């Protein structure tokens, strides 16, 4: 048993290292993806350019404009905006928002009447519009407090944001990306490794030896576990270097649980290879079965709690769902094994199930 298994593992390593182009792709692709996604997928907005129509022209109105400009999210268009050019500014996307301060702004403030300012927001991208509106409201709230200290607030909410105090969305996405990339690459590796042997006919030659299904299956999985771990390390390292994403918990625990997750993904790839006849089918099948569910349903972007029940069921069997909980907890919260064992257990269970199923489905004949 051990000799045949070792022979297959050794052979698999020769394949991996001799095909250095593929190896390079396997290693560089995750880093490339994290750079692309890391910079592109961000829910933060900075440099929101806004124009000002200041009809009041008082110290109060200027203080209001400064309140916007000073917090880093907004940037003033460095000149006054005339009413009739407002539309063309929006059309040319020169501004996201225009702030209109009416003539009697200061008068209203000093007489303790409520002063009205108008915000005109470009919501052609509704997401951006919402963000701009929310930010602006906060700025206005701060300004209100500053000007109105005469009126004491009835109560005050003092939010403190834990684990990701800047609400930095990179911190939120990078763990998700690790989950996505590891699932995608690992599943691809094994599904292709087996279908390639079917396609080139080498499977026929191996099968006529006294080899066992479990030796072939394990021999295909184990070498790629190592490759998957190297991938995980590279992704985390580049996330740390490029985006300052922290790992607050134990690196060893993260490594161990990543290992479990990679094992699940590899077994999933094996499962696909028992169905797919050609490398092409295996590749498309793997892409379909990993990318979409992992992005949409695992809690990577959309919270599982707000999904309809059917999708929640699917989410509950996705390995990525559990790994996301694990990796976010370790990286951002510094959580240890005491809290994460249920997820770890479920992942190991899914992996064992998949591997057993793949082994049993593995055909020792050509039919």
């Amino acid at each position: 048993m051990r000799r045949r298994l070792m022979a297959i593992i050794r052979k698999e390593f020769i394949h991996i290292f001799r095909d250095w182009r593929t190896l390079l792709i396997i290693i560089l692709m995750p880093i490339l993806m994290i750079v692309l996604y890391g910079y592109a997928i961000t829910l933060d907005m900075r440099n929101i350019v806004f124009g000002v129509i200041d009809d009041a022209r008082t110290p109060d109105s200027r203080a209001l404009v400064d309140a916007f400009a000073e917090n880093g999210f907004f940037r003033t268009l460095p000149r006054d905006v005339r009413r009739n050019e407002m539309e063309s500014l929006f059309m040319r996307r020169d501004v996201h928002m225009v702030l209109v301060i009416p003539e009697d702004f200061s008068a209203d403030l000093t007489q303790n009447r409520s002063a009205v300012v108008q915000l005109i927001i470009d919501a052609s991208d509704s997401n951006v519009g919402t963000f701009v509106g929310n930010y602006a409201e906060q700025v206005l709230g701060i300004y209100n407090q500053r000007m109105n200290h005469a009126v004491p607030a009835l109560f005050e909410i003092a939010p403190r944001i834990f684990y990701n105090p800047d609400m930095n969305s990179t911190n939120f996405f990078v763990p998700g990306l690790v989950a996505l990339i590891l699932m995608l690459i690992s599943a691809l590796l094994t599904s292709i490794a087996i279908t390639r042997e079917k396609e080139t006919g080498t499977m026929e030659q191996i099968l006529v030896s006294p080899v066992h299904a479990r030796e072939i299956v394990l021999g295909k999985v184990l070498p790629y576990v190592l490759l998957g771990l190297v991938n995980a390390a590279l992704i985390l390292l580049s996330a740390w270097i490029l985006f300052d994403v922290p790992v607050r918990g134990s690196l060893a625990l993260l490594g161990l649980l990543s290992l479990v997750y990679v094992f699940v993904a590899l077994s999933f790839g094996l499962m696909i290879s028992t169905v797919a006849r050609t490398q092409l089918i295996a590749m498309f099948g793997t892409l379909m079965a990993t990318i979409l569910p992992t992005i949409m349903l695992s809690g990577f972007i959309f919270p599982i709690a707000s999904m309809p029940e059917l999708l929640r069921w699917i989410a509950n069997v996705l390995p990525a769902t559990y790994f996301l909980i694990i990796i976010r907890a370790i990286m951002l919260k510094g959580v240890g094994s005491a809290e994460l064992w249920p997820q770890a257990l479920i992942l190991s269970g899914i992996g064992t199930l998949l591997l057993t199923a793949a082994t049993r489905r593995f055909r020792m004949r050509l039919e």
Partner: protein
Amino acid sequence: MKPLVSVEHFSKSYGEIRAVRDLSFSVRRGELFGLIGPDGAGKTTTMRTLVTLLRPDEGTVTVDGMDVRKQLKAIRAITGYMPQRFSLYPDLSVEQNLRFFAELFSVPRNELTDRMQRLYRFSRLEEFSTRLAGRLSGGMKQKLALSCTLIHDPVLLVLDEPTTGVDPVSRSEFWEILRELREQGVTIVVSTPYMDEAMKCDRIVIMHSGVALAHGTPGELINSMRLPMYALDERDLVMNFSRIEAASGVRSVQSFGDSLHITTDEDIDEDRLSAALEQTLDRPVRLRRIAPSLEDVFIALIEQGTEHAE
């Protein structure tokens, strides 16, 4: 002594396609046995069944008394199989391929060097031992594939069209090796579409469209064709082919290079045939009585077979 391979009433279909129908033959120990027939005859199906890669639909197939349906591992351990398509790892070197299969078959480590030396000696691949298998020539690939199937000293060697697509020199070299192996007592089942290779087998079974047309030694098969056969050296073969075929007493006509081989009905002798032909072609003809070759037998059998089928 019981035969090493026994195939009894074996049938195999893929969906609607009946690949092999009611095939029976047996292979004695130490024999060089040939499955002869064109593409689609059912040779590959039969061989894959012998090495337990396919399960028979009907009939019994045994190797060394073991049923191919049940004793997969045991049969695989004593059998060497070379698929029709080159199935080694092109990105592994000659030596890495050999070692890999040695490990799969659990060849004792202390014997490995010895066996590899022996295999290198006949295949003359030693100087290429570090070359990637994908970079070998066609003939060398076949010799490497054969070496890999021999690494565990199999009792039975099953070779599916080992010389198809291989140059003539390498082909005859390959058959030289097969003969040596037979001398050493290895039982070999080989398939080929080539009649000259069929002649080199101890016994053959001729297959066509999944059916066995005949079996025996090549000599027996040739002698079994008692029909007289004549060669006609005719220049305008194509033009006169159908007229000759239609002449009285002519059973079948085959073209062989520059001449036609004519089989006649049993009651027709040389004089009557030449008279009939002269009448048909309206000019004198020169006939030669010839002994049929295996190819003639093969073609005659196929024609009989299709007549039977109709």
